[in-house]
C-alpha cells in the first residue's frame, strides 16, 4: 500500500469523524486510529495493541478510567454467570478481567490497567460502546497498591 493512499484514507477519516478503520487486503491489513485532541480519544496509535487497553486517562489522584479498547457491547456479567465480574468497591489486581466487550460472537476481555478498587461502573450491562468510551473508574487502594500482584495470562 502506497503512503499516498494511506494519506488519502486519513484525510477522509478526518473529514467524517471516524476514529478507527481497518482495511484488509491480500497480504495487508491497515489499521488507522485517529486522534482528536479535544475529544475523549486523545491518544494516537498507528495500530492496536492487544495487550492492555492503551486508552486510560490518569487523574491527579492516581485514579484511572478503564476505557473500551474496541467498539462493542459492554458486558458486566458473562452470559453464563449469575454475578458481575466486578462490582463497585471490589479490589482488583492489574490484569484482572473486569468486564467484557462483545463484538459479534466474540467476547474480548477488559482488563484492570492497575491494581485498586472499582470506584464506579459507568456503563450499563449490555450498552453499546465505542473506542475510548469510559467504562469504569478505578482508584488506588491504600492497603493494596498492587502493581505486582496481578497475574496475567497470555503475555
Amino acid at each position: 500500500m502506497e503512503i499516498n493512499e494511506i494519506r488519502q484514507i486519513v484525510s477522509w477519516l478526518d473529514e467524517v469523524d471516524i476514529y478507527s478503520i481497518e482495511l484488509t487486503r491480500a497480504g495487508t491489513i491497515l489499521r488507522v486510529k485517529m486522534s482528536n485532541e479535544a475529544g475523549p480519544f486523545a491518544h494516537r496509535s498507528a495500530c492496536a495493541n492487544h495487550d492492555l487497553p492503551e486508552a486510560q486517562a490518569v487523574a491527579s489522584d492516581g485514579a484511572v478510567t478503564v476505557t473500551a479498547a474496541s467498539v462493542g457491547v459492554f458486558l458486566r456479567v458473562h452470559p453464563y454467570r449469575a454475578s458481575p465480574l466486578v462490582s463497585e468497591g471490589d479490589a482488583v489486581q492489574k490484569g484482572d478481567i473486569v468486564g467484557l466487550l462483545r463484538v459479534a460472537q466474540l467476547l474480548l476481555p477488559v482488563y484492570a490497567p492497575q491494581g485498586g478498587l472499582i470506584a464506579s461502573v459507568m456503563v450499563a450491562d449490555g450498552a453499546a460502546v465505542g473506542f475510548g468510551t469510559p467504562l469504569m473508574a478505578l482508584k488506588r487502594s491504600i492497603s493494596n497498591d498492587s502493581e505486582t500482584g496481578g497475574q496475567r495470562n497470555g503475555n
Partner: protein
Amino acid sequence: MATLDERSILPWWTVQAKKGQVLRLGSPAVGARCYLALAGGVDTPMVLGSRSTQLRGEFGGFQGRNLRKGDVIGAIGPHAAQAKLSDAGMPEFGVEPPNFFLTSPSPVPPGDAEATVVRVLPAGEYDCYEAASLEAFWREDWKVTPDSDRYGYRLAGPTLNSRSAIEKRSHGIVPGVIQVPHRGQPIIQLRDAQPSGGYPKIGTVIEADLWRIGQTRIGSRLRFVKTSYEDALSALAENERYLDKVANLVALYRSSLLTT
C-alpha cells in the same frame, strides 16, 4: 468453575497456559459437562476417524478406557500460524455460547423454565400409541433418571401405552431415537447409541438439539416439542451458521493480532 493456577477462567474461553501451570476444572455452573479443547487436539490415536473413547467396546481414546489419575496425555499442539501467535503471547478471549445465537424451541403449553426443550420428529411407531399417551408425551416434563449416560438417557414420566403390543425385529437406530420399552418409560439413544435395537420408536430428537440433551443433568427435566423434517434441517443449518460464524470471527481476530 475453572482456574489456571489461582486465576479464574471464564466459560467458553481460550487462554494460553505455560509449562508448570495447573488447570483445575470444577463442576460446571451451567449444563452437565464441560469440555477442554487443546490446540491441535488431544494426541491419541485416530480410530475410525475419531480420537474419542468407546468405553463399551474398549477402543479409541486413551487405551480405550476412562482416564485415571496419573495418566499423561499429549496435545498435538498449535499449527504453524497459531504457533506464531503463541510465541507472541496468545491473547485470551471468549465466544458467546450457542444458546444466545440459536432460536430455542418453545414448548406448548409453556412449562418450567428450567426444563431443557428439544425438538422431536414422530418416528416409525408413533401412530401405535394411545391418544392420551401421545398427548402426555408432548405435554409433560420428563425426568432424567440416574440410569443415564452417553449411551442413552432413561426418562421417567407418564406411562406411554401402545394400542396393541408392538413386536419388532431388531433394526437400525441412530442417536436421538426415543425408544419405548414395555414398561412405557422412554429411552433416548445418545452419542454412544447402539447401532440397532428392537424397541418401538415413538420419536427422534433432531440432530440439531442433541447437544442440548448432552448438557442436561441427571435429575433435571426435558420437554419435547413436535417439529417437521424441514424445520429439523433448518435447525441444523442454523447450528452450522453459528459454528462457521465463530470460526470466521476467531480466524479474523487472530490474524488481525498477528499483523500488529
